[in-house]
């Protein structure tokens, strides 16, 4: 699959200049490094998915692992998403630790039953007799002209599903740490890799480390307005925070990192502190992540809020192919900046 015009149009942490590139590690490489370390650590781990072996995955995340770990542990499959996740579920039931790649997040619809009715309920419905220590890695998000079936933000499909963990890194350091934590975890993790972040770079520690699941981070400290975001919305929020700073508004950016179960403590503490909140979410507004966060903050910080929580979301549409139309549908840092201003001025 040839991908052109894959340059994130909006912001995201785009590659720096030549010299920088040498020192820094891309999001993709960070994930690759995490898989490598985990494969060394866990004998019971294996990788499974379409074109992940020889080809190294559509985005190169599994490159080189076939050569190092062999075809038993790095398994190419046919186009059978339900069978891929079923295989992971069954293997996990007997103590294996599978990591699946679903090439594009949109195709999780194909194995929705396995994820929602089986994987997410395995531990509970059989009274804790099985665990489902598996990870489903998948490339999500828009911004590259992928059209309606290669661009969706799909966390909304799983928000209302107890039993599933949703990890959603915004940068290479967290990508590695969260992936290692996800693989170590005995809970099933849906691991979201936003396509626009794959080329972002940072200094990533080469050794094994974990970033705890269920814990948000403060990506930027501020006093006046809180922006809660995840994945690609985080670099956009940081950019909007810069804009706001120029207007004298001090913005705190909370990077959720895990979407389910999410870190209400950190979110609510920041919201209580600033009393003004923006929630940024790439998916459509109705029933999206922003709805849950806005509801929770509005309920629990009722007395502290100095204005209504402002939601910034994608429009309530599928993702059109045409780039100018896609630009209209997806939110960007300007939209966040406008929302910050509105929140500050309420």
């Amino acid at each position, binding site marked *: 699959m040839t991908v052109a015009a894959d340059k994130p149009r909006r912001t995201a942490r785009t590659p720096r200049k030549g010299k920088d590139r040498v020192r820094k590690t891309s999001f993709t490489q960070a994930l690759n490094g995490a898989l490598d370390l985990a494969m060394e650590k866990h004998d019971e781990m*294996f990788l499974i998915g379409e074109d992940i072996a020889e080809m190294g995955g559509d985005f190169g995340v599994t490159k080189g692992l076939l050569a190092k770990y062999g075809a*038993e542990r790095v398994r190419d*499959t*046919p186009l*059978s998403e*339900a*069978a891929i*996740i*079923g*295989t*992971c*579920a*069954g*293997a*996990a*039931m*007997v*103590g*294996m630790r*599978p990591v699946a790649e679903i090439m594009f997040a949109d195709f999780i619809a194909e194995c929705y*039953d*396995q994820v929602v*009715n*089986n994987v997410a309920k395995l*531990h*509970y*419905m*059989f*009274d*804790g*007799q*099985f*665990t489902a*220590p598996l990870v489903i890695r998948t490339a999500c998000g828009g911004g590259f002209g992928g059209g309606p079936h290669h661009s969706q933000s799909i966390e909304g499909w799983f928000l209302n599903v*107890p*039993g599933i*963990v949703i990890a959603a890194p915004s940068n290479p350091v967290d990508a590695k740490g969260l992936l290692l934590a996800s693989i170590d*975890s*005995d*809970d099933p993790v849906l691991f979201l890799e936003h396509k626009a972040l794959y080329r972002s770079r940072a200094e990533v520690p080469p050794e094994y480390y974990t970033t705890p*699941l*269920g814990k948000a981070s403060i990506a930027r400290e501020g006093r006046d307005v809180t922006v809660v975001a995840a994945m690609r919305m985080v670099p956009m929020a940081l950019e909007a925070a810069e804009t706001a700073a120029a207007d004298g508004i001090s913005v705190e950016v909370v990077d959720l990192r895990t979407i389910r*179960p999410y870190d209400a403590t950190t979110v609510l503490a920041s919201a209580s502190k600033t009393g003004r909140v923006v929630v940024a979410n790439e998916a459509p507004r109705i029933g999206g992540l922003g709805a849950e966060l806005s509801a929770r903050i509005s309920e629990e910080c009722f007395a502290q809020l100095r204005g209504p929580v402002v939601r910034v979301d994608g429009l309530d549409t599928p993702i059109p192919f045409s780039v100018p139309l896609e630009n209209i549908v997806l939110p960007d840092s300007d939209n966040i900046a406008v929302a910050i201003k509105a929140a500050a001025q309420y």
Partner: protein
Amino acid sequence: MDTSTLKGLYRDMWLIRAFEQGLEREFEQGNVPGMLHTGLGQEATQAALAAHLEATDAFFPDHRCHGINALAQHRHGGNGERIMAELFGRATGVCSGKGGSLHSADPTVGNFGDNAVEGSYMATVLGVALAAKMRGEPNVACAIIGDGTVGRGEFHESLNMAAIWDLPVLYACVNNGYAISMPVGEGHATADIVELAKGYGIANQQVDGNDIVEAWTAVGDAVGRIRSGEGPYFLEFKTWRWQGIFAGEFRPEAEVKYWREERDPIMLAAEALAKRGATPAELDAIEAETRDLIEEWISFAKDSPAPDPAKATADVYAGWEVAAR
């Protein structure tokens, strides 16, 4: 098959029948919540499967498999009553009452749990089989599916993947002629489900699911081949279920009569045993014994407490607590 094996299987079949009949009675009295599908009429198929599956194997039972579940529990765990208790939703059930008839599991006896989304475990079974293969264990992973369940897309994904990876999967297709009200010949391009397995090059056999000797032999052969590394095997059992649909019986009278009166698997086995010299008294004793045992199990279930309320929110996640109200 030697006579003592046949006698053992005869006892197993009675255990299934007594279990289901006792359960049906309790259900009608309103003591068993939810939905009920019984394996009555399919005792030979079920006993044959249970007989060859070890505690180290894995089977995925369907909605009519209380009998297999109970046999596995009885044989490998010595506690068949825990299946009964599960169906009553009690604390002493194999899943503390959280699963019920459609989600009873106990991996210590090889029971990997029903999935009430019919046939989804045709995908899940692949993983158990793959793990066994990767670890070099001679275990069989068995998916028990009805003829109707063959309609699911996962049938194809599963058979294909099992075939290309040579996985130790036993597909036990219980073709009882109907999916709820849909005759197998109307729901499928072929009423002989083995025809579908052939396209994948999977070894297969069609057997009389009401003939315990034939069924037992076929399962033994298939399981042996799978254990020795020959890859997946597809068995189609031709049988018939006594239970109609809740609106009552919908099948032609002659058909009902034929299967109930001429093809009752227990009656056929009794005839075979009689030919081998078993006395009516001996056979009656087996029936009586198993019926008594099942009544004990029912009493056990009824006397068991409801689950601890803490179970309602327990085990949603392994790593997090979920708040109660």
